[in-house]
């Protein structure tokens, strides 16, 4: 048996095709790290510069004003930067962070007219498909496993050596396990080593994930190797096995996730997006044609603490202006809550299918731990909403008291930061499910070992 295994290993390592595939893997992995790191570094630089941009903007607005100017008049123009900091793992699993806002600027105006602003992106590059390490791992690594494992038994059959192997004292099942182990071991060693090195190369901190992520990668590849073993049970020719494995790859990696998300989008439409936009605009602007007292009453329902400060009804006041903005948000509130609710429900529904699609399962887990998935983005938007509320609360005294700008300490305005680095625990669910896949396939192969 030892001789056979050494032979197997030697044959594998001599294969020029495998060496070429390994080289492609390393180049692709390196390229994906460079790309992911570049995308996230660009965002980090932008976030690092954003305080200076805000200071420059505030200076330009306030710089020429006389000290007696009404502060609330200028407040209209002031933008405040928010920051969705990238987690240390974002460079490895970019998710759709490159397509989503991460540096929203908000004014004290109606929130729902600002919260959904898109950042500048390259639609062409996004449509061609980003190339992060998570993608290389879930899409390319299985092809390596398929390349070496699809003919684990059929190659012996075709070479006429399988009867000889079977005649050995070792059982066919054990032989399959050993051969598969050698072949899978070589590929897995390469992929797991790369996965272990990747976080170090992009400067992720040394937490438990440095071990857990390679473990997930190993379990993921094991699912593919076991799939090859199941396919080998059918006893078909090598080219048929390769075709079946490629078909599985297309189904799991390309078609399955696309089908599920398409179904999710059809099942959970989001007309609330347009609805909240229309409502916000109408709620705010309509107030310009409604009595001041009515608008203020709506405002006091939410902020009773300002009820006793008199607001003139026969002229323009800033208190009335910001109360009108509030009415825009009030009008959009139901649709906006519905929008977030629908997105979360859809995400839950779609994620419910991922256990059936291991590549999507792993990608979702990596995006989760990197905090580059949809819930992470929604969390950021909610933190922006909370910050907007803090800004309002902070400046309402200035608005209601008609303070001059000289009386305002602009530096004291609240600052926004949103940081969530994720944890190793985000990956345990996916690891468990992959283990279930491997166990199920093992049971199947063992039960049907007679067909070998």
């Amino acid at each position: 048996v030892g001789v056979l295994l050494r032979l197997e290993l030697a044959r594998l390592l001599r294969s020029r095709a495998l060496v070429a595939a390994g080289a492609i893997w390393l180049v692709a992995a390196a390229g994906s790290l460079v790309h992911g790191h570049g995308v996230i570094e660009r965002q980090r630089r932008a976030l690092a510069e954003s305080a200076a941009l805000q200071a420059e903007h505030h200076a330009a607005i306030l710089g020429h004003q006389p000290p007696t100017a009404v502060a609330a008049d200028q407040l209209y123009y002031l933008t405040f930067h928010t920051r969705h900091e990238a987690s240390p793992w974002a460079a490895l699993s970019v998710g759709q962070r490159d397509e989503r806002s991460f540096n929203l600027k908000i004014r004290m105006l109606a929130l729902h007219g600002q919260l959904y602003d898109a950042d500048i992106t390259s639609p062409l590059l996004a449509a061609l498909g980003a190339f992060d390490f998570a993608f290389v791992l879930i899409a390319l690594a299985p092809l390596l496993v398929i390349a070496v494992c699809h003919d684990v038994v059929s190659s012996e059959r075709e070479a006429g050596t399988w009867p000889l192997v079977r005649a050995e004292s070792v059982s066919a099942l054990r032989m399959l396990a050993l051969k598969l182990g050698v072949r899978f071991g070589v590929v897995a060693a390469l992929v797991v080593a790369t996965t272990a090195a990747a976080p170090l190369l992009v400067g992720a901190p040394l937490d438990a994930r440095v071990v857990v992520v390679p473990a997930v990668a190993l379990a993921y590849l094991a699912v593919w190797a076991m799939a090859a073993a199941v396919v080998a049970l059918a006893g078909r020719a090598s080219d048929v096995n390769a075709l079946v494995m490629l078909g599985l790859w297309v189904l799991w990696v390309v078609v399955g996730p696309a089908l599920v998300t398409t179904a999710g989008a059809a099942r959970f439409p989001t007309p609330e997006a347009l609805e909240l936009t229309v409502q916000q605009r109408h709620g705010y602007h309509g107030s310009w044609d409604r009595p001041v007292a009515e608008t203020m009453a709506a405002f006091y329902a939410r902020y009773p603490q300002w009820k006793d400060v008199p607001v003139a009804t026969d002229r323009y006041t800033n208190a009335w202006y910001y109360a009108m903005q509030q009415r825009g948000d009030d009008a959009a509130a139901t649709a906006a809550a519905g929008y977030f609710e629908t997105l979360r429900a859809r995400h839950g529904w779609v994620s419910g299918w991922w256990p059936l699609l291991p590549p999507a399962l792993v990608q979702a887990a990596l995006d989760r731990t990197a905090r580059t998935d949809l819930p992470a983005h929604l969390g950021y938007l909610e933190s922006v909403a909370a910050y907007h509320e803090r800004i309002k609360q902070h400046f309402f005294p200035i608005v209601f008291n008609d303070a001059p700008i000289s009386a305002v300490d602009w530096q004291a305005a609240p600052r926004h930061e949103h940081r969530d680095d994720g944890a190793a625990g985000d990956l345990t669910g996916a690891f468990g499910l992959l283990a279930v896949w491997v166990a199920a396939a093992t049971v199947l192969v063992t039960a049907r070992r007679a067909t070998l």
Partner: protein
Amino acid sequence: MRPALVRVARVELTRMRRSGALAALAVVLGGLIVASGLVAWRAERAYEAQRQRYSATVDAQWDQQPDRHPHRVSHYGYLLFRPRAPLGFFDAGVTANTGSTLFIEAHRQNSMNFGDAAHADAPLRFGGLSMALVLQLLIPLVIFIAAAGSVAREREEGTLALVRSLGTSWAAWLGGKVLALVVAALAIVLPGTLVVAAVLAATRDVAWTSDAWARTGALALVGLWLALWVIVPRVVPAIGAAADQLPTRAAFEAEVERRTRALGDSHNPNDPTFAAFKAETLAKAGVSRVEDLPVNYNGILMIEGERLTTDAYRGMRALLDDSRRGHERSATIAAAVSPFLAMRLASMALAGVDVRHVDDFERQAEDYRYTLVQHLNQLHAEEVGHADDRYVSSGGGSDAPSRKRIEAEHWQDTPAFAYVAPVFGTAAAQAAAALAVLGLWLGGMTVWLWRVRPGVA
């Protein structure tokens, strides 16, 4: 020679028909094409219905505005919804990666919001389900595998030597194979077929000598598909984009503000540009006070301010468009290596779902915004007297303080925004570069195949 070619093709097609696995794949892929086409078509229709419903609401709201001060109206603005391209069900292109809703108003060029990708559930690195995905990505893979299997069988059965000894030429043999694959996969997947032909030829030496070539051939083809269909289309454009970095919106707007301030700083009461503008306006009318001007100076100032901010924005926007053209160029360069990418770019352009169509929508929307806002500023200058241009208690029904309101008829007859898609010729011109690349692949392959043909045995 032609009958020989046809004969080879017919034999090949018969074999393909008999191959169970390939037939099954063909059924699956065919079903997938039909299903994805129908699903996408339904989704596009649902989007259009929703878009039309909200467009009608917004149009009605615009017309139902009460009498308002013109500047109020220019902040009320307009909500535009980007229509989908008629062929969007075939190829989604960049549709999901761009916004669909644009709020236009005075002073500001807002972003197009609510793109599907911004709130998508999972990063679909191969794109959503569409006919284009199946035709351009998956079918070439099937062709590659079919081709590898076909040659492997010829070798194993020893029929190639037989066919050759019967006088079938190299060109007829290879041409027959290619013809069969083309027929099997329809003419749409031409680029994939050409690569196959090239690899068929490349395996010539290996095929005659090595025992293990059949599997290596299949592996090489899958590797090639991986390299040219999956890796190159992502990596090369990304390298180009790294060289042509886009600004973030925050940085972009900061630069627009800087440029606007350089043109004329409306936040500086002593700004020389606006001081000169005021002096010039007064001099032209031969008066010394803005109150004596025949039109409302506030409106005139609005017109000038809008012109300056729009100038600053458009200057920056042109730079942004240049960067995006740069991304297109690097993709086109990558297409020289990847026929998939060439096909992808041509398909997106022809289906009207490429970045240029998005840019074109944004440009038309911005032109509409500018015209609308300046029209309202003109009304501000002409219909609102300078003395009436301040807040007074309106009393009566609305009881909201207001500057002078003018009759709603003034803006009710403004034409609604109607996006005019570029004529097909423009798109075809866009696709020309990509199609030329495909042509080069075709020509190059044919020449190469002719040169590497084996001599008569």
